[in-house]
């Protein structure tokens, strides 16, 4: 009988706390995310979702607590670990004056991707922007910009994809399209952590739900064992 293999723990956070301008934005947050999981972080506005994702992306340091990514503690500037992370937010993180392809090639080169142009075109094909590859990002609609942002986040083939409110400001067809892309990424084995305030949509998409209330984790459970009413109650009950 072959030895049992344990899935890698991609994210391990222990008692993370963060204060911003004297306000406790995160309080003793602990969580674990296994490789290949689709985790949704749910919470009302100001619950600490974006701060948590920034800390997981190593863009922000917690005031206390320990964070391990891919089994390694995050110390210093976290540069080698960041190379395995892709980040999407409601802002595109793209240069508006450059074309979608130029943006992707630029980021690809920074990450040391081989054949960055080839990779850029492949990703733009994947997100349905191949025909607009040479158009400036400033000419894109919100939905197209968000798809280009996803391509940017994937240019270096990250193992962990962090998405902070990626559906913000998107129309219904764009939301559907983005959901299809995320489902495809999950099927390809990527670990996804997505923050969202829409409970129903979050529970449909994710496998594991983490509910934040006033900077604390109040629920960390498999989405199949949760319903919207429970999550909503946990989100607002003081």
């Amino acid at each position, binding site marked *: 009988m072959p030895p049992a293999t344990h899935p890698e723990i991609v994210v391990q956070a222990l008692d993370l706390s963060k204060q911003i301008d004297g306000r406790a934005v995160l309080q003793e947050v602990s969580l674990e995310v296994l490789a290949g999981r689709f985790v949704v972080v749910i919470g009302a506005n100001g619950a600490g979702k974006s701060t948590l994702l920034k800390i997981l*992306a190593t863009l922000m340091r917690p005031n206390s607590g320990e964070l391990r990514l891919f089994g390694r503690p995050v110390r210093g500037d976290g540069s080698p670990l*960041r190379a395995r992370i892709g*980040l999407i937010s409601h802002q595109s*993180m793209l*240069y*508006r004056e*450059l074309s979608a392809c130029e943006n992707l090639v630029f980021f690809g080169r*920074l990450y040391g991707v081989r054949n960055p142009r080839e990779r850029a075109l492949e990703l733009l094909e994947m997100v349905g922007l191949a025909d607009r590859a040479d158009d400036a990002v400033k000419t894109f609609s919100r939905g197209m910009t968000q798809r280009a942002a996803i391509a940017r986040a994937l240019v270096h083939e990250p193992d962990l994809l962090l998405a902070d409110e990626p559906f913000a400001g998107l129309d219904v067809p764009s939301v559907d399209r983005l959901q299809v892309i995320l489902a495809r990424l999950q099927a390809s084995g990527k670990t996804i952590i997505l923050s969202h305030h829409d409970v129903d949509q979050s529970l449909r998409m994710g496998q594991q739900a983490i509910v934040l209330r006033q900077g604390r984790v109040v629920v960390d459970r498999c989405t199949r064992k949760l319903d919207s009413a429970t999550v909503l109650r946990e989100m607002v009950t003081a």
Partner: protein
Amino acid sequence: MSRVIRQIAILTLKDLRIEARGRQTLGLVAVLGVLIIAVLGLGLNRQVGGVDATAILWVAYLFAGVLSFEKTMAVEREDAALAGLLMAPVDRGVLYVAKLLSNLALMAALAAVITPVAILFFGFDLSAAPLGFAAVMAISMVGFAAVGTLFAAATASTRLQGGLLAMLVFPISLPLVIASTQLLVSMFRDGEPLGGLALGVLVAFDAVFLVVSWLVFECVLEP
């Protein structure tokens, strides 16, 4: 080492490509620089002339430079592009050097536009030491851009931005302006060769701010 140089080249070329595409920064700062020279020139009724006019030239460099630093950093703030950069496995010092080189390229282009205007306006004869003039200005610009790049990054996320940037950069750059003007006066009026204490001040200023900025740039960057 080659990786660092490659990353600096990629980042600097990106900035220059964006500027070439939009031509927003250079167009704006060049017009501002020319206007400052024209307004001061007309206001002073040409009572200032010759080498003394380099002080006026510096006023134009300072204001146009600060606006330029602010604009080049604003590109990174727009749509949170800076967060995308910070996610890449790039040393923060590399980001600083690349932004500094972009700012220096813009300052060189700016100087190429407004210096001839000032020379014509104030009758400043460069023929005695054109290379000396270029050398003094180049050394001064490095220090000015080193300070400006650092503080533009530090103030980019604040609401005051331009006003605060000017309040920080102007006083810090004062030794640079004084030393540079003294050097030009000694070269052009007194006929002395390039050198002396003033040159030492310029070089020391550049060295201190380049090293300090490289070291602390990480602390001033916020996604």
